[in-house]
């Protein structure tokens, strides 16, 4: 079976594709240069830091611990104190009127409950008019709380644990609840978020570019008819075109993973197999998108132009560089269709949190489903064009 598959015709087709790729300098460069540049640039430059947000404070406890927490919040440089408010309602009005950017409400029994080892809820109010800032502020708050929490635990004098952070009054427009995503990035290394996101972006976008260029090549050169006159079946032609690209892009995955580890020192807490599985699916997705685009174009240049229409929505609706939570609500469900989003969730969870397949299976399943649909669609288009 294998001998039949790799002997004769298939070997000839694969040999030809590999030889062509081997001679394509631009292709080889595009497997190394864009990943390096994108990871480094995005990782270092797209540091989503926000500072000097005006923080309104409602401290019902007036204890050493409450003042300590407020100090920790403002010391980080992300927030500066914008004065005390008397109640959560007045704080909310202050945010709505734009007097402050965020607010924190510390309950009456804050220190007492902490000492008793109870879980304490802290309410954080955010102005979601600027969704991006709100999401980042949320992340900061989470991080500060987390660090503070750890310090408390280390000192051994307190047995407190924050797991849940205050609910949001429904009637106040533009307030979002906190999401525990940033808890696992306690050092507030924003680059970790960006880099893990860029990884997926890279696989899909670079994969699709490389694939569309390779797929359109045969038609651009005019050799496709000659190929169609040979006894090679369309299935064989498609497999022979996709397989070498897959191998190459998997090489890019390894390269990018190494870069992430060495340059950004992202912890590899979880199972790398899950990450690589996701990456392989992403690569196939990228190839599928590229192939699909290539069927609508006659030249490599046209294919690249086409990708200009596809890539921006794909990357901005991915949650790779900006949190999905920062998007308008109606738009958020759309990201479920985006492979980059699922891969982002998988890498972040697996690398930073060490999550296992038990938790990540919905994302893996979704990614696999998207890949299957895209791949079938593009193979169908390609086949139709060949036939």
């Amino acid at each position: 079976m294998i001998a039949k598959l790799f002997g004769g015709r298939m070997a000839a087709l694969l040999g030809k594709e590999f030889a062509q790729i081997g001679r394509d300098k631009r292709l080889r460069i595009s497997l190394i240069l864009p990943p390096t540049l994108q990871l480094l640039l995005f990782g270092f430059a797209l540091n989503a830091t926000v500072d000097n947000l005006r923080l309104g404070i409602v401290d019902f406890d007036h204890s050493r611990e409450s003042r300590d927490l407020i100090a920790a919040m403002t010391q980080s440089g992300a927030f500066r104190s914008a004065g005390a408010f008397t109640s959560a309602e007045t704080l909310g009005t202050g945010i709505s009127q734009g007097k402050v950017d965020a607010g924190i409400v510390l309950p009456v029994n804050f220190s007492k409950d902490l000492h008793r080892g109870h879980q304490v809820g802290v309410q954080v109010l955010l102005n979601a008019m600027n969704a991006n800032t709100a999401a980042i502020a949320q992340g900061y708050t989470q991080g500060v709380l987390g660090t503070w929490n750890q310090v408390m635990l280390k000192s051994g004098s307190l047995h407190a644990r924050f797991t849940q952070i205050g609910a949001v009054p429904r009637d106040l427009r533009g307030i979002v609840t906190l999401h525990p995503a940033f808890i696992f990035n306690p050092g507030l290394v924003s680059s970790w978020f960006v880099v893990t996101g860029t990884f997926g972006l890279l696989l899909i976008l670079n994969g699709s570019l490389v694939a569309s260029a390779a797929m359109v090549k045969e038609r651009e050169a005019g050799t496709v008819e000659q190929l169609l006159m040979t006894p090679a079946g369309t299935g064989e032609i498609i497999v022979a075109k996709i397989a070498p690209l897959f191998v190459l892009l998997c090489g890019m995955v390894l390269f990018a993973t190494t870069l992430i580890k060495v340059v950004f020192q992202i912890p590899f807490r979880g199972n790398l197999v899950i990450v690589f599985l996701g990456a392989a699916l992403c690569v196939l997705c990228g190839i599928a998108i590229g192939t699909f685009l290539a069927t609508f174009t006659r030249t490599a240049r046209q294919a690249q132009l086409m990708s200009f229409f596809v890539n921006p929505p794909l990357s901005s609706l991915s949650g790779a560089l900006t949190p999905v939570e920062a998007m308008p609500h109606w738009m958020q469900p759309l990201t479920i269709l985006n492979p980059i989003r699922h891969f982002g969730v998988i890498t972040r969870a697996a690398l930073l949190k060490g999550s296992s397949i038990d938790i990540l299976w919905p994302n893996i399943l979704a990614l696999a489903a998207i890949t299957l649909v895209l791949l079938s669609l593009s193979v169908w288009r390609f086949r139709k064009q060949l036939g």
Partner: protein
Amino acid sequence: MTPAEPPSGIGNGAVAIRVAGLQKNYAGVKAVRGIDFEVRKGEIFGLIGPDGAGKTTTFQILAGVMEATAGTATIFNMAAREARQETGYLTQTFSLYPDLTVAENIRYVGDLRLIPRAEIELRGNRYLTMFDMDRFTDRLAGRLSGGMKQKLALACALVAQPQVLLLDEPTTGVDPVSRREFWDTLAHLAIDGLTILVATPYLDEAERCHRVALMHEGTIHQTGTPSELRGSLGAKRLEVHTAALSEAEDVLSGHHDGILDVQRFGDRLDVIVREPVEGQRQVKLLLGAANIAIDSVRVDEPALENTFVATLRAIGREVKSPRYPGLHPHRDIMGQIAIGATNLTRHFGAFTAVQDVSVEVKYGEIYGLLGANGAGKTTTIKMLCGLIEPSTGRMELAGESGSLRSREVRQKLGYMSQKFSLYDDLTISENLNFFGGVYGLSSDEIETKKRWVLEFAGLEGKETALTGSLPGGWKQRVAFGASIMHEPSVLFLDEPTSGVDPLARRAFWRMINQLADMGTAILVTTHYLEEAEQCNRLGFMVAGSIVAEGTPGGVKRAQTGHLIETITTEPQRAADILRTDGERWRISLFGDRIHNVTDGDAETSMRETRATLAAAGIGVLEAREIPWSLEDVFIAVVEKAKREERLAAK
């Protein structure tokens, strides 16, 4: 008169172009190795030679865009560089702006040269009228046909009113009808006093020059008028018609004194002999001894190609045609139907590209499909080889009438598309390995065939060269070799020899004949009518239909009209006068001679022509009936079909 002198009556004696001892070396390559020639004012001078002969380099030096390594190139006694105002240079790829209209293209060129707008308008209109293009001034250049693009590029070059026109292979890829119109235009311009230097690899075009120089590997080997060159061979050409072409070719090709060359065509052999009477006797004797019946023998002048081939052979250039290592001949099915198309029609939307075409090609037969651009040749060949499905009609291919796209059928087919049948980014060896492998040949067989292809292409030892780096002619030969590695029983060749020099083309056809003798059915399309002579049968396509079919001799005989050649004192004015009388296509200018296609009686027509011209004060020096060339037949057939279509439309 020595052969280097222009014929009398051409030009006023002033030398327009003078090239002496011209040399050009590129990094290690001697492109031009010391050439000399002179072109008189008003002369059409042809540089004839294959790819890599140094034609383009010579043109670039004359156009002043490149410096010579040694020697001089002057135009009206000025260095080529200083004379750029006087020269119009058309490169192989025209620099037209496809998004501008015809008029805008001309205006742009004129504006660049700071010619007043009114003057541009005047000259533009004059040339567009001369080229029969004045109806298309508002059409986008990108929408013009290949031939019209050629003429527009020429008009753009002429707007600056150059004294000298340099045309580097201006008709590559242009169909016969447009090519003839283009050459008519050149004849017209030359008579107006324009000096034209033109490069071409095609010898039928060389016939339309006043003088030609045969150039090969940077050296000019012979210069003279076409008839001088033909005469320089000191030989005659015998057209031998026989049914057993292959056997007769074998018999006569053995070395015999007096027989200089044997070339096989579709329905005859051309035998070049020193002396016609003795030659005929010898041919009859030799064929008689081999029991081969001769239908007829006709004596004629040798063609320019014969001279060219003899010249190249004299300098030791011979293209090899090693015997094809065919392991699986198809002789057993010879004579059975390989391609059987019945009433094929193909629509693209509302447009009917092919209408009711029926073609039958037997195993062992070479069938030529001819047609102008847009006649539906490409669509037809794609239907015949199963690449696209006909809208209606029945197809039988390689014994299969159901699924033509099945793997079994494709295994039996060979296909060589126009230009793009090899991968430029693979080496020659990789390409051959690929095609061998994809057809499932064993590695031993691939090796055998590979050696043969390399020998045929003359590329032994160069198999690791990138295919993209090969000049066109070599690439064509490799592509041809690649397409027959698997010994197909049905072979489709779509313009296999465009850009291939005469010697290589002969090697090509020798190979095609070998394949046919092995039982392969071969379908060829071509733009070049001299090449069509090589086919056993021909089909002429016009506007999606086959309008004439038969052997090369058969279609010539089927012409009801006559072809008259007239030599007059004022060729251009005479041509203009004769054109106003009849249809434009009937009259064409070949240098100083006028060809006239007449439907009536030859004698009457000649008498009428003399009378018409005499009334205009033009003397006729000579008028005679000449045999139809396939090109004349083609143009007559196309034009008559178009006329009938126009009548039917009314």
